[in-house]
């Protein structure tokens, strides 16, 4: 039996969807019948003279009975990466020595990558994908390609889109699936490309996907509900009946289609700016899925990935966009759809294993691709192509035919029919743990949601974790959970974030700690950048997870971890924060601030803070950047409230000849003073104040999931004459009314001994420093800084050049 060509979607769906009795079996049988019809419907003639000209003029308006789709129909979201994505830097084989050796100027620093399994690691920007991996729902299909790789963008993309290598394609693999799904009718709401032109892979022999604009609703939507333009629409509809050749008809119909699509989809296309191109497109895709209009296939693509030169900045940007877009997609998607939606990626080829002299790579061959979704069975699939055994053109040899990749999607998720669509039998990689709509939707750990605005309660410093005393060092990828709420003077309820100094000790190799709210997805940021030979502390201000804990992740090697708590933020009563323009509070080099001039020995000194450098008398705690300089030998500095019992904490650790800062938030003790102690031999100490806490004044703090705000490795380093202004408000979760921001700032790629200063934009550059940097080091420090003109910060290194990374940890808003 075969169905009539002009069957409506609703009728087709009734045939296709029988969820009551073994839906997949029925779907498949019906599907095969429909496929046969679609293919037999023949190509549409008339003017199709080049590769992507396949066009189906007109359609039957009665076939527009859109949605909803069946409860066991899978939805596929296809992301095209145009220009040839460098798969070797998306999923890097970091355990292969050839990886770094071949890719001079291009290889990722393995220490920065996000480990998966078997020596594979994600690009550092792909933190969302890492969360999906950790949750067990990211499949990485390795080595996807096809025989006799064609090195032309155009040909190779055409082969991929067609689902058939080395043929001149007439239509695409999903288009042929669509032919079968729609039985040859022209439903505008079964498949859509979010973008400006409909690509070959969703063009079938008899039908093609609808293009949905990603730039706001167009004419046809009826925002005022008065139907004012209906008479004009009617006139344009009448014009279509004219007959003066195929393009006359096609153009008239396309005008009408645009009106209809705009009317139907306008409500789902946001008018506001939704960020970067792919993020904007996937947000629209998620909204279209939520609306359940009948869409089974949504595609979107972007570029450019053709990184022949200057690859690092370009590819890092693309990976960041991919990550943001995936996050935004799942953030927009109604969770009820999680077990019915799968995302897949493709690109026309990977790139060469060897880099060229222009920090670029050339057209390659096989590459890994991602399949993401609540019912995806996470893991590595296929075989990673060897870097040692390249083909005669020094390209990687594919291990998974892209038709097997497609077949796995079609048979595992779209109801079957791969051999008809692909013209042959290909291996099913078994990428799915359950069919569409089956199983419990399962997603990665939730990202941390910003805390409610909190007031600050300072504490006498207390060490709350020391792996040297208990638990042993943290190994690679190890996570230390540190209970905060309900201990150490922090109340069991009400605490939203903690101020702690975290120190990495006895590290066996260069590594970083990421400190983040307990029980949430680990962000792609770092808190402490350490290495062998020296303890490295850094202050963190981090939100507490649901269980009142924070977690410390270690990236590489082993290292001990110390956590000293200096206070917490609470939704209850406490002190508000008032930022100050950075100013010097004291300096033992010249006796500024009333301290004794001369190097500090072992004897503690008291430093007046209240009433100094803009800090008022009623202040209860102060934010001070404490720097040790001209150090004669190893030691550390400790700040405590004057009059409080001796503490076992530390703020700054140093060796001879160091200049080392660390931010401190310290309670003011007797007389509004703090006590500075120094262990070890002589050293100078310098304090710069950045703000204070006082009851009934200032703003309240909100912790956010750490997010990267700035990475000059993707733009221009900071250096002499190259101070930069960074927009902070309305980015990375910081609202427009924020008055100050808490950032973890790291410096790297330093060309000479120098320092980095952060200050409110528009204010005069102060004589203070936040980071003291040396060539060969990566150094981080927490920065709490008032926001200047237009919510901007200025960042400068007046002496040498360096790259600066900044991660937002939280912000202060008026109470």
């Amino acid at each position: 039996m075969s169905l009539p060509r002009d069957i409506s979607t609703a009728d087709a769906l009734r045939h296709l969807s029988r969820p009551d009795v073994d839906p997949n079996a029925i779907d498949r049988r019906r599907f095969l019948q429909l496929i046969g019809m679609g293919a037999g419907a023949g190509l549409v003639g008339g003017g199709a003279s080049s590769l992507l000209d396949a066009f189906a003029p007109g359609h039957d308006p009665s076939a527009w009975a859109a949605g909803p789709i069946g409860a066991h129909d899978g939805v596929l979201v296809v992301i095209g990466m145009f220009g040839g994505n460098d798969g070797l830097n998306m999923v890097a084989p970091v355990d292969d020595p050839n990886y770094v050796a071949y890719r001079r100027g291009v290889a990722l620093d393995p220490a920065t990558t996000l480990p998966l399994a078997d020596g594979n690691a994600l690009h550092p920007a792909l933190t969302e994908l890492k969360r999906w991996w950790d949750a067990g729902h990211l499949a990485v299909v390795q080595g996807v390609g096809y025989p006799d790789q064609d090195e032309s963008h155009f040909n190779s993309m055409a082969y991929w889109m067609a689902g058939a290598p080395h043929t001149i394609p007439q239509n695409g693999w999903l288009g042929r699936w669509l032919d079968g799904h729609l039985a040859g009718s022209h439903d505008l709401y079964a498949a859509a490309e979010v973008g400006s032109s409909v690509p070959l892979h969703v063009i079938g022999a008899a039908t093609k996907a609808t293009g949905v604009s990603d730039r706001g609703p167009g004419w046809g939507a009826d925002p005022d509900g008065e139907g004012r333009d209906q008479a004009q629409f009617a006139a344009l509809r009448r014009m279509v009946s004219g007959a003066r050749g195929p393009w006359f008809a096609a153009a008239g119909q396309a005008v009408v289609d645009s009106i209809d699509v705009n009317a139907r989809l306008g409500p789902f296309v946001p008018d506001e700016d939704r960020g970067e191109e792919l993020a904007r497109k996937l947000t629209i895709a998620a909204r279209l899925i939520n609306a359940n209009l009948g869409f089974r296939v949504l595609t979107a693509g972007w570029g450019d990935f053709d990184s022949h030169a200057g690859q690092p900045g370009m590819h890092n940007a693309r990976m960041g966009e991919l990550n943001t877009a995936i996050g935004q997609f799942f953030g927009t998607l109604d969770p009820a759809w999680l077990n019915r939606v799968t995302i897949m990626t493709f690109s026309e080829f990977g790139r060469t294993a060897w880099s060229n002299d222009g920090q670029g790579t050339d057209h390659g061959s096989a590459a890994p691709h991602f399949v993401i979704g609540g019912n995806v069975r996470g893991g590595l699939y296929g075989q990673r192509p060897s870097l040692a055994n390249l083909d005669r053109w020094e390209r990687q040899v594919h291990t998974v035919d892209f038709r097997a990749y497609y077949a796995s999607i079609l048979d595992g998720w779209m109801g079957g029919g791969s051999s008809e669509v692909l013209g042959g039998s290909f291996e099913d990689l078994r990428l799915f743990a359950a069919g569409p709509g089956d199983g419990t939707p399962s997603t990665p750990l939730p990202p941390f949601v910003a805390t409610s605005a909190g007031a600050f309660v300072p504490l006498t410093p207390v060490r709350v974790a020391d792996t040297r005393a208990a638990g042993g060092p943290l190994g690679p990828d190890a996570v230390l959970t540190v209970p905060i709420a309900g201990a150490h003077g922090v109340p069991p309820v009400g605490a939203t974030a903690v101020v702690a100094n975290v120190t990495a000790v006895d590290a066996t190799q260069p590594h970083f700690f990421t400190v983040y709210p307990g029980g949430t997805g680990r962000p792609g940021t770092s808190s402490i950048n350490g290495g062998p030979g020296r303890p490295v502390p850094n202050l963190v201000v981090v939100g507490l997870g649901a269980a009142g804990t924070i977690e410390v992740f270690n990236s590489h090697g082993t290292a001990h971890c110390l956590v000293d708590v200096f206070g917490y933020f609470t939704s209850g009563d406490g002190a508000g924060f008032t930022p100050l323009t950075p100013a010097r509070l004291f300096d033992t080099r010249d006796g500024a601030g009333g301290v004794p001039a001369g190097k500090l020995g072992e004897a503690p000194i008291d430093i007046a803070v209240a009433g100094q450098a803009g800090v008022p008398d009623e202040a209860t705690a102060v934010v001070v950047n404490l720097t040790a300089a001209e150090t004669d030998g190893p030691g550390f500095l400790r700040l405590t409230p004057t009059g409080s019992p001796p503490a076992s904490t530390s703020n700054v650790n140093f060796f001879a000849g160091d200049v080392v800062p660390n931010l401190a938030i310290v309670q003011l003790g007797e007389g509004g003073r703090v006590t500075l102690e120094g262990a070890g031999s002589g050293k100078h100490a310098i304090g710069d104040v950045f703000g204070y806490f006082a009851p009934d004044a200032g703003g309240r703090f909100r912790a956010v999931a750490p997010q990267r705000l700035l990475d000059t490795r993707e733009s221009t380093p900071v250096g002499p004459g190259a101070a930069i202004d960074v927009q902070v408000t309305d980015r990375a979760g910081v609202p427009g009314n924020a008055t100050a921001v808490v950032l973890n700032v790291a410096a790297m790629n330093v060309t000479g001994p120098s320092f980095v200063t952060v200050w409110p934009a528009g204010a005069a550059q102060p004589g203070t420093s936040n980071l003291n940097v040396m060539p060969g080091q990566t150094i981080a420090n927490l920065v709490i800084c008032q926001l200047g003109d237009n919510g901007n910060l200025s960042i400068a290194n007046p002496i040498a050049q360096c790259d600066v990374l900044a991660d937002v940890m939280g912000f202060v808003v008026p109470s």
Partner: protein
Amino acid sequence: MMPARMPTLNETNVVHLLRRTEFVARPDRVAALLGAASFEAAVDDVLAVPANPGTCQFTREANWERGQELVHYWIDRMAYDSPRPIQERMALFWHGHFVSSMDKVGKAELMREQIDLWRHHGLGNVRHLAVTMSTQVAMLRYLDNNDNRRTSPNQNFGRELMELFLLGVGNYTEADVEACSAAWTGHTDDWETGAYEWRGGEPGRADWQNRNSNWHDYSRKRFLGQTINTDNSFEGGRTHGAETILTMLGNGVVPIGPNAGRPSREVVAEFLSRKLWTFFAGTTIPSGVLAALRDALVNSDFAVRPWLRALLLRDEFYATDVRQGLLRSPVEYIVAMLVTTGLRSPDATPTWLMDGMGQALLYPPNVSGWRHNGYYVSASAFGDRTAAARQMMWRVLDRYWGDDGDGSVRLVGGVVPAQDLIDGIWQMSAGARPAAKRAIVDQLIDASRIDLDVAGSNTRSSLYAFADQAQPWELVYVVGLLLMSPEMHVL
């Protein structure tokens, strides 16, 4: 083979000739060509382009604004300022063939230099165009030929020169790609100034040790069956790249594929002829025409004018399927709307919509350039066409509703005054209104000069139906509906 029949010199054919060569059939041009002595004379008139079509003078500082100035200048040339718009249309052809994009080139001056090559010499010789564009900094940058070194060849340009620019895919081996890429090593540019630089170096001299000046591969290569790069002097090295073009257009032989053993110049000529036909006709090229155009190009030693002339004189070019065979590309649609409304490009072209329509000048989508017809047809691309048409309509209606307007609607073919549009109708009896409203529709159609009186069009009757139920003040929307009509979208 039968000698090709000459097209008849009649209005249908002349209008078709002008639409395809001059974007629109302007009444004065129709009259002029109908008065020509023969069809050949009419075609020669079309091809009588000015020797110097001028160049865009930048007045702005910012690069982006300069790019926009260039786009508006060029569109105005197409719509108004060129006495023979085939010159600009042929430039558009080459812009979509030897592709560079401002995205990657980064400097409006460099794009202007390349566009001016197409504008000034687009009817000249393919060899000259190919050789010249290859070392223009726009192309050096766009296909990474500015970073193509002996020790680390970048094949991007060498490959596309054969695959997309001249020979077509499947007519060369990977070894040919390597030889071609090697021949092109050593050309580069200064990123700051945009100046061309030759860093070929010279083997044996001191600077051959300098990594920054020894980029050229002086070794002889086999390329399409010929030995190239035989002159290994310093100056000779600089011409090795051009030698690959001379070989493809000269005595090269296709090494593999269905064309194996054929002279590469014939294969080049066929490849380009297919593309030229598609651009002007929109249909699949008839085999007889393909052979004729190939021969015209080879016999004229790759001169463009006789080749295009041969195409425009083919009877097949005037057949119904060709006359109905082409959708206006977005640029062609914008040009037609400007002509219809009498608006100049800087005042009226919504350049921000053109990428969504599928064709933004200076920004081809990829190295294979724009395609045709169905490539531009989708609901979303046409959504941007209607948005552009409505932009144009609002500009026209500025004069109608605007504070300094005189209440009339002006289009290329005349003015429809306000008293006719609204006042007159209000004063009529209800019985007289329908006919008056239809008369206004007729006036607006006449003023637009869009030809709706061809069998098969329902556009006029659709506009009548609209007018019948429209309020008098809504009649001006006919301007927008005309700009969106199917007639406006076909070439």
